[in-house]
């Protein structure tokens, strides 16, 4: 009798540990690589297995094109640190006209920010939060969210930013655009567009004389 209840307690303990582990894994999954918390909605209709929500994000620091090719014809690109590691930071630079040697053609229109408002002068292969903490390029969305809180809030609830895939995560995954898919971080206002598709149904234009009614 004693032996039996001992087994029961052991089983219960194992089960508890297993459940805790699974719960931990799930929480980890909900944290997206971009650092943005992804809302995984639970509902009566979708309380089964939940597919992931993948948020687009850069894989690492950008590579800068030099415009030169190597002997095999491959484009030569540099990491930010190639130049910035051994030169002084210009902490006051806040427009593209002051960029004399490199980054030619960069269009900057992001308020009154300076380069180092976002780029980390201590390590140009990373970004820097307002509080001074270094931030990997992959987590750029956290950087944007510091100032653009209403957009970040809407994004977190699925009400900002384009997406593809499934509305019902119990049936399939979803892929969401990240901030910099639509907004150039250096000139973030959404660009103007020209409509390329127009219906020609008869409600759209006034009827022309002599044309059939359809």
């Amino acid at each position, binding site marked *: 009798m004693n032996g039996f209840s001992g087994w029961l307690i052991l089983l219960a303990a194992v089960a508890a540990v297993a459940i805790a582990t699974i719960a931990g894994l799930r929480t980890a999954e909900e944290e997206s690589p971009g650092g943005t918390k992804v*809302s995984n*909605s*639970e*509902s*009566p*209709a*979708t309380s089964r297995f939940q597919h992931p929500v993948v948020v687009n994000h850069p894989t690492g620091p950008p590579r800068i094109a030099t415009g030169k090719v190597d002997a095999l014809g491959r484009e030569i690109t540099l990491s930010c640190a190639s130049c910035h590691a051994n030169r002084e930071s210009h902490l006051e630079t806040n427009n593209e006209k002051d960029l004399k040697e490199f980054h030619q053609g960069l269009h900057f229109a992001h308020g009154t920010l300076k380069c180092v408002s976002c780029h980390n002068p201590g390590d140009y292969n990373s970004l820097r939060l307002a509080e001074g903490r270094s931030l990997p390029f992959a987590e750029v969305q956290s950087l944007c969210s510091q100032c653009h809180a*209403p957009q970040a809030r*809407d994004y977190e*609830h*699925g*009400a*900002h*930013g*384009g*997406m*593809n*895939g*499934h*509305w*019902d*995560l*119990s*049936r*399939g995954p*979803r892929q969401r*655009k990240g901030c910099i898919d*639509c907004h150039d971080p250096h000139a973030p206002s*959404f660009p*103007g*567009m*020209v*409509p*390329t*598709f*127009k*219906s*020609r*149904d008869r*409600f*759209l*234009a006034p009827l022309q004389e002599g044309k059939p009614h*359809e």
Partner: protein
Amino acid sequence: MSDPANTPEKAEKISLPIIGEVSRRTVLKGIGATLGLGAFAAAIAPLTQFKDQTSLNEFLQQHYKELDDEDKKQIFARLEEEARENYGADVKIRDPKPIPGVRYGYAINLSLCNGNGKCAEACHRENNHDRAVNQSYIRIFEMPKGTSDMEQGSTTYDHAVPQPDKYYLPVQCFQCENPPCVEVCPVEATWQEADGIVVVDYNWCIGCRYCQAACPYHARRFNWRAPEIPAEEVNPDQGYLSNRIRPQGVVEKCHFCMHRTREGKLPACLEACPTGARIFGNLLDPNSEISWVLKNKRCFVLKEELGAKPTLYYFFN
């Protein structure tokens, strides 16, 4: 033939010798009969066409709600065959059912929409619309700021967007909770499904267009012609009540991409929107994106006073 003809005086009085002495009454009868036959032939002429275009099975098809699975299988096979014959496309026709516990809602952020029209184009391609007139279930109004009176909007704008003094209002079927279009249909060819989507059975529609007149939002379209679509552009993933190629002379409308959304996917117009202005989901799920928008944004519907209760909402940031 009869006596008067043999009388020389009377024969001279007759002006048409071929008809002879046939009475005026008989001539009129003959003309009447000829005209009658002609009219009859003209009247049944469409039937000879009908024989070419419509199989007996299609003619005898029951209302969608009375079909069992075996009937549907045969009908879908017949429609797939017709698509192969008429459009040279291999298509697959299904009829996904409403998901229990789901009622669809849609919201459009008018602060983000810039009227670029990618949604209308995606609809055009997804739903096998007529290429000849660029048909689409979505119509975008360029509206002067400060009004929601559609009469003041323009849909034919053709310049860079957005214009600073304008906002852009995409209008499509709102899948109203109280749809006036359904009420007026004399043959019950259109009805509301359990997930809120108002559907049309294109094989049951008689093309009277009452529903088109009843819709306060001009959301329904009439197929004046059978759609023209090149074989390689036909979307083969088709639903019987949604995007299968419509025949001539029937009414159609937005169905929230039912063949996609009932399998959990997002509508084609949402995926195509480059501004992220569209939010879609389950109104009955309190944690869904659409529920969050309805709770936290100041949403409105068009022509609320009519009481149709649209389930597509608009909001500004």
